[in-house]
């Protein structure tokens, strides 16, 4: 009897992709209502890219050489900046608890949130980066490679970062701690991305980096949501 009723309840629950789409849509809507959250990391990205020529000097040769690295470091820092707010507002207004008690699998819901995060932080970075890359005298053929690496890399960064954000949610001193946790883990992504761009700039074979970034993105896509879900459950016990 009980089992039968359970089945009935089960059948009323919408499929997992509905949950995924709903969380993603909700977060995108929230981002739309508060555009500052999306724009601030982008301004930060642009400003960090401006700092480097001021610090190391405007010589064209030097800029051309350091461009890929600078853009990647700036993108990494900008992503970190936006990660802090991934769960914090949901934690404060209690909607995170709703996610946790939802009958939908938590990793899928988390994936929806991370997807929205990538769409509002990673993807804009990809589209802003060419403007800055050109000021670093990056040739157009290399700009394409850079956008590709940033696109793939920020997917992994969002997913990896969501683990850190879930672990530090509800902690005061969260921001500094989040950077401390995520930066060492994110280093390989930056190494692969920045070096692929450097290789492309010197007309070398750069595909290794792209493939590795793709592999990293797929691996984190399949593993990170579970870790994030576990971390969220631990943080909200």
């Amino acid at each position, binding site marked *: 009897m009980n089992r039968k009723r359970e089945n009935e309840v089960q059948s009323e629950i919408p499929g997992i992709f509905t949950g995924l789409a709903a969380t993603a849509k909700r977060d995108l809507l929230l981002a739309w209502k508060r555009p500052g959250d999306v724009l601030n990391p982008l301004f930060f990205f642009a400003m960090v890219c401006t700092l480097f020529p001021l610090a190391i000097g405007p010589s064209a040769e030097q800029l051309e050489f350091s461009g890929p690295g600078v853009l990647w470091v700036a993108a990494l820092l900008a992503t970190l900046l936006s990660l802090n707010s991934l769960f914090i507002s949901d934690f404060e207004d209690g909607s995170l608890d709703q996610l946790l008690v939802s009958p939908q699998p938590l990793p899928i819901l988390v994936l929806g949130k991370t997807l929205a995060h990538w769409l509002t932080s990673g993807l804009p970075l990809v589209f802003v980066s060419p403007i800055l890359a050109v000021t670093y005298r990056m040739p157009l053929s290399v700009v394409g490679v850079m956008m590709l690496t940033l696109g793939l890399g920020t997917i992994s960064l969002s997913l*990896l970062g969501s*683990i850190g954000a879930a*672990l*530090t949610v509800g*902690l005061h*001193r969260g921001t500094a*701690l989040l950077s*401390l*946790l995520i*930066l*060492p*883990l994110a*280093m*390989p992504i930056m*190494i*692969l991305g920045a*070096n692929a761009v*450097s*290789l492309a700039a010197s007309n070398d074979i750069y595909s*290794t980096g792209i493939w*590795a970034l793709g592999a*990293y993105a797929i691996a984190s896509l399949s*593993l990170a949501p579970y*870790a994030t879900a*576990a*971390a969220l459950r*631990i*943080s909200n*016990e």
Partner: protein
Amino acid sequence: MWKWFHQLASPPHFYRISAILSPWLAIPGLIMIAYAAWQGLFVVPMDYQQGDAFRIIYVHVPSAYLSMMAYMIMATSGAIGLIWRLKLSHAVAAAAAPIGAGFTFLALCTGSIWGRPMWGTWWEWGDPRMMSELILLFLYFGYMALRSSIDDTTKADKASAVLALVGIVNVVIVHFSVEWWSSLHQGQTVFKKGTMDADMRIPLLIMLVGFTLLFGSMLLRRIRTEVLYRERRTRWVREMILSPEGGA
């Protein structure tokens, strides 16, 4: 066998056993380290290429190896704690982290002291092993920072276990990415290790065993304090402290 294992996992039992075990690891460990240090510093002949500078290998290699072993212990016991909810294994993870960070730091320091006469620089950004080791140190720092910023012990245990597990997947990727990255900059300038002479190798092996034993003893001592702190409100701790022996 299993019964013995389960008993060991109970804090009071572990506390008693470890008190007996700890000196049995420490004393042979220290004797071996002293013997190998004497061998390595005075008896082993000079390296024909590196002169006396190679002798730092007797500290560098064991600490580098223990830095990784401590991380493995930390992550494995964290996973055991998550899966089987063993309280003791979280205490092991908590105790292993600072020791591991210490050995990582020691490996980096001795490495850079060694690098000075060999490569002419204190720090070589292009060396993959130095980079991996540095990132490992940062991982330890992150782990300890997370642990210390969560007040609730159970929560800190679980959260840091998740972090350690994510970290261990990443350590492999870090290693390969850094290797790939450095191969762009230069060929492997690090001297290729040829066959080491037995005269040099045997003290190194003794040193490795000695360091491991000492590490085991240090770990046990740290776990003991950790267990004592965690169980401070339980009856067995109170009874032990109030007992005539004072719980030594």
